[in-house]
């Protein structure tokens, strides 16, 4: 029996339209908008000013504070301005705008195609280069990766988990990456293992990607300690805690971190980025983005420079269909709807999903019939039917008591609800208010 996580989960239509499209490199756009906040934590602090000439891969903003990371220019050109620009959050936030010239890479970056498998860097160097290269979790969470590699004092990991699950419908960027950049992924995993001082790594992949599973199993023979583990399809298996449970049957305690159960989870894209940073000296200035949707002419996977407008990607995939109703940054279950197509691709953009207008609006809301489906599908063992009214009517004590903060916003409850109730909307409201209350209590 192939493994999966035991509690909850849903099976949305997979819709992996772009699974068969090889990664295409998109040409460098004329202008890039590089937001200073592309990661969880403090925005980076700019180190360039208007009019500066920058090269591809040059640092343009430095990590500020513990939870933060560096940001690099993804192009060669001139800084037009540092200003507030609309980004995928829907708000205007600080960004560096660069007009592009001829593509010249900064010194010391190896842009050659040869795969460098010799690992010479030690753990400290790997962690430092991960920070220098501005690497964040590329699965979409964008948590700075060097922090996850520097284990807190007294904590020890014995196994590394690599997330190749890609449980979100539509997205195929990780799938293509595993197929086309398998060796780089394997070296990247070895680097992560070295940084964490662990001898075992598991790559979890859902079995709707048999070609990727077979390819990586073949490769893994040459790399010590790496095991490929196929997983039964179920959303949200790519969620950190669910993946750990599915692969090694350990349960991260409520409010805890994976390292509390001796493991660290990194996305496959992150592992490849670490490979490039350590072995090639190449910072994180481009990523693979799936552009897809039921009505799209050419669902594609692009290798894109950070800062490229979303509109450019959509045009390259055959243009925006006339009946478009919604454009989602990320997957359809957890992605954010964009309010403009002119926002840039950032480190966390795993996909752009175009949803037809017929599917863009929600079901009409009717009374809760207490069918218990939300309780059945909640992978965290929560009771969404109880949390929603708690948040709706401001019963914050009840919401806290019922573990509202354990919710990871996977959306399974809203997905399954036959009454079309906006469960997750209210739970989000409840989470933010309850967190504020808890913070104020501590002061």
């Amino acid at each position, binding site marked *: 029996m192939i493994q999966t996580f035991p*509690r909850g989960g*849903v099976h*949305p*239509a997979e819709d992996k339209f772009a699974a068969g499209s090889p990664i295409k490199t998109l040409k460098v756009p004329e202008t890039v908008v590089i937001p200073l906040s592309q990661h969880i934590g403090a925005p980076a602090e700019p180190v360039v000013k208007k009019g500066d000439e920058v090269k591809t891969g040059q640092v343009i903003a430095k990590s500020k504070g513990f939870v933060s990371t560096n940001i690099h220019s993804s192009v060669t050109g001139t800084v037009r301005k540092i200003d507030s620009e609309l980004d995928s959050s*829907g708000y205007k936030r600080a960004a560096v705008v660069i007009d592009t010239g001829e593509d010249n890479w900064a010194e010391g970056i190896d842009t050659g195609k040869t795969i460098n498998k010799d690992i010479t860097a030690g753990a400290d160097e790997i962690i430092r280069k991960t920070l220098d290269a501005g690497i964040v979790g590329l699965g979409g969470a964008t948590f700075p990766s060097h922090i996850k590699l520097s284990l807190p004092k007294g904590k020890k990991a014995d196994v590394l988990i690599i997330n190749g699950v890609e449980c979100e419908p539509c997205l195929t960027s990780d799938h293509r990456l595993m197929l086309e950049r398998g060796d780089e992924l394997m070296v990247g995993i070895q680097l992560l293992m070295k940084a964490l001082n662990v001898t075992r790594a598991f790559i979890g992949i859902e079995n709707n990607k048999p070609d990727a599973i077979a390819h990586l199993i073949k490769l893994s023979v040459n790399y010590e300690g790496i095991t490929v583990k196929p997983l039964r399809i179920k959303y949200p298996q790519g969620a950190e*805690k669910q993946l750990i*449970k599915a692969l*090694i049957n*350990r*349960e*991260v*305690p*409520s*409010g805890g971190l994976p390292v509390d*159960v001796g493991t660290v989870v990194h996305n496959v894209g992150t592992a490849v980025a670490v490979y490039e940073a350590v072995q090639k000296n190449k910072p994180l200035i481009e990523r693979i983005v799936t552009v897809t949707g039921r009505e799209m002419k050419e669902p594609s996977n692009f290798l894109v420079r950070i800062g490229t407008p979303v509109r450019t990607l959509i045009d390259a995939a055959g243009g*925006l269909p006339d009946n*478009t*109703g*919604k*454009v*989602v940054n*990320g997957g*359809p*279950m957890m*992605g*954010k*709807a*964009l*309010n*403009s*197509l002119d926002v840039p691709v950032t480190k966390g953009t795993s996909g752009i999903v175009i*949803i037809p207008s017929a599917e*863009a*609006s929600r*079901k009409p809301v*009717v*009374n*809760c*019939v207490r*069918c*218990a*489906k939300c*309780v*059945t599908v*909640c*992978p*965290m*063992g929560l*009771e969404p039917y109880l949390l929603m009214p708690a948040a709706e009517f401001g019963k914050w004590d009840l919401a806290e008591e019922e573990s509202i903060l*354990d919710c990871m916003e996977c*959306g399974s409850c*809203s*997905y*399954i609800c*036959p*009454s*079309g109730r906006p469960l*997750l*909307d209210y739970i*989000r409201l409840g989470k933010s208010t309850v967190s504020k209350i808890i913070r104020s209590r501590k002061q």
Partner: protein
Amino acid sequence: MDKLITVSPSPHVYGDDNVKKLMYGVIYALIPAFLVSVYFFGIGTLIVTAISVVSCVGFEYLIQKYLMKTEPSVSDGSAAVTGVLLAMNLPTNMPWWIIVIGALVAIGVGKMSFGGLGNNPFNPALVGRVFLFISFPVQMTSWPGPIVSRLQYTDAATGATPLAVIKEGLAAGVPMSRLVEQIPGYLDLFIGHLHGSMGEISALALLAGGIYMLSRKIITWHIPVSIFLTVFLFTGILWLINPYDNADPVFHLITGGLVLGAVYMATDYATSPMTPKGMWIFGIGIGVITVAIRVYGAYPEGISFAILIMNSFVPLINKYVKPKRFGEEVKNG
């Protein structure tokens, strides 16, 4: 912006189910039992069902429109489900005006007075049934005979249900071995060839509908299975102790309203617990109370009362029986 696009929080895709589909699913599941009843009881089945469904839907519409002054939502099918289930609980010779009163109590008192869909603590169809059972005991306990009364409605020849035969027989001191001769064989009991309400006669047809509801994930198995197991074990123990004064467990499973109650009435969403563990407590409670009433109580059948009594425990069960939170109690392998 060249084109307006929708911006809303995730998720951006939704499952196919809606309340209407679930409610109509219950109605589809009851079609086999309905057809069996048409076969055995003929026009009575058609008349009783039609009156019950039309009055339930009609009362809900009128109450929503003129009393609650909200947009009527009868198209969601929940009132129709109550109508069909109420009909399933009645003898097929029931006079029309009693059915209308039952529908008014079921929908008006049982459902709408609490705020309608999803807010009622008690199963509305059972509220209607029990009200009629107490108010019109004679009409509610005279059951038309199968096949012979196909073309008759209120003038059908009537008899007692197997459970009533046993109950009265045992009370009069007749041994079980003699009583068995007075009731239909187990195969007849299973397919529905007996005196009884239109919905309770055929365990076979009811179970077929139950399997359909399970396959469509309209219900889960926990409540029916816990009720069946409890009834089987409880009556089995009594039968082993004293086979002379007790019917065997198989008889208890396939007679009376047990299958109808366990599969269709106890699984009613609003009036059953939210977690599997809670459903087990609920189901075991229903099983124990049903057998207690059947064996020790005044009535031959107790499933309706059992479900209503356990309905009242549901808020308490939901409050204290929680799903196991992820990461709540750490055990690492």
